[in-house]
């Protein structure tokens, strides 16, 4: 089972999206982001874009910024591997984007196939020019997420917040 994701931090992230005038939110679903996705779906002023793979979200963010829209990309850490070459678009052109990434393959992971990408997530992002921060406690999520948004759009670069698996609750499939 997945521990029910707390909606408290999801609501904080939703308020942040609104306060920072983000207009496009793109997503490949993850259990940890499910409450935030629901909030964004219900908001008719936000454009929620459902992706088939995370790299589309990188490209979408570039197009959004060309047109004057700020965007956020929601995904789980396994999706970072799908983005590697597309991230060159952001670093070469200095496109801003904040990525909020829920971790798999770290604390108490039960699925061995998740572990390699979970271990590599931070290094892969940094090698491709993304500024990475990481939340280990629930009360860190909103302030760190605000930092990724402000830094992305004030300094014109991609940023990422990794949300640790320990605070999300590890999936087990045992219950």
């Amino acid at each position, binding site marked *: 089972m997945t521990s029910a994701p707390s909606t408290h931090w999801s609501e904080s992230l939703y308020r942040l999206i609104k306060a920072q005038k983000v207009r496009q939110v793109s997503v490949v679903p993850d259990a940890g982001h499910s409450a935030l996705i629901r909030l964004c779906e219900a908001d008719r002023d936000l*454009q929620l874009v459902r992706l088939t793979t995370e790299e589309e979200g990188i490209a979408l963010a570039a197009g959004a910024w060309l047109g004057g829209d700020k965007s956020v990309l929601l995904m789980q850490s396994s999706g970072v591997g799908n983005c590697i*070459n597309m991230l060159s678009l952001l670093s070469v052109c200095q496109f801003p984007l904040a990525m909020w990434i829920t971790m798999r393959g770290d604390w108490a992971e039960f699925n061995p196939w998740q572990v390699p990408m979970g271990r590599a997530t931070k290094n892969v992002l940094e090698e491709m020019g993304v500024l990475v921060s990481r939340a280990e406690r629930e009360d860190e999520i909103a302030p760190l997420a605000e930092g990724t948004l402000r830094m992305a759009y004030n300094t014109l670069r991609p940023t990422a917040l990794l949300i640790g698996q320990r605070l999300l609750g590890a999936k087990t499939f045992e219950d």
Partner: protein
Amino acid sequence: MSAPVTTRSEMDQRLKRREVAKALLADRGDLLVVAGLGSAAWDVTAAGDHPLTFPLWGAMGGAPAIGLGLAIAQPDRRVVVVTGDGELLMGMGSLATIGIARPGNLSVVVLDNERYGETGMQESHTAHGVDLAAVAAACGFHKVSTITAMQQVEQLRADMHSVQGPLFAQIKIAAENLPLTLPPRDGTHLKNRFREALLGDKAHFQR
């Protein structure tokens, strides 16, 4: 793997890509253009470098999704993605993403020579029967066409400026090796000139 579906003599009679790009972008008005990497970007540049064109030098597979982000951000402007069959095949999932997002102002035009032109003219999947127009139709594009004549290109040009999208057009073109016509290669320059032309001074102060 079987032989290509199209014979050499059939291929030679197909539309010429530079003529197609020039006709598509004639009298472009305030059209916003994203050009996929490789030959499509050179074709669009040969038709006339323009600040409201964003030509790609990499990010293969990303052109349609860039067009989608732009179309959502600028609902009152018409947006066209001009790309090649190889580039589109790498981002084929984005046709599904566009199909459900249903941007009425977006057109995706694929210049289909059934080849990877930048890497030695190896055959692509479309040379072996993959029908990209059928994929786009199945993904829910509002209007889909397969084009083999210049008269149809003229109709597509008109549709790109007026018809409810998303539109998809697959233009069958000859496999030609042409001189490169390169756009500027500094990505920050391409981004900044596009945003300035579109957003004015606000481009430099948005945060």
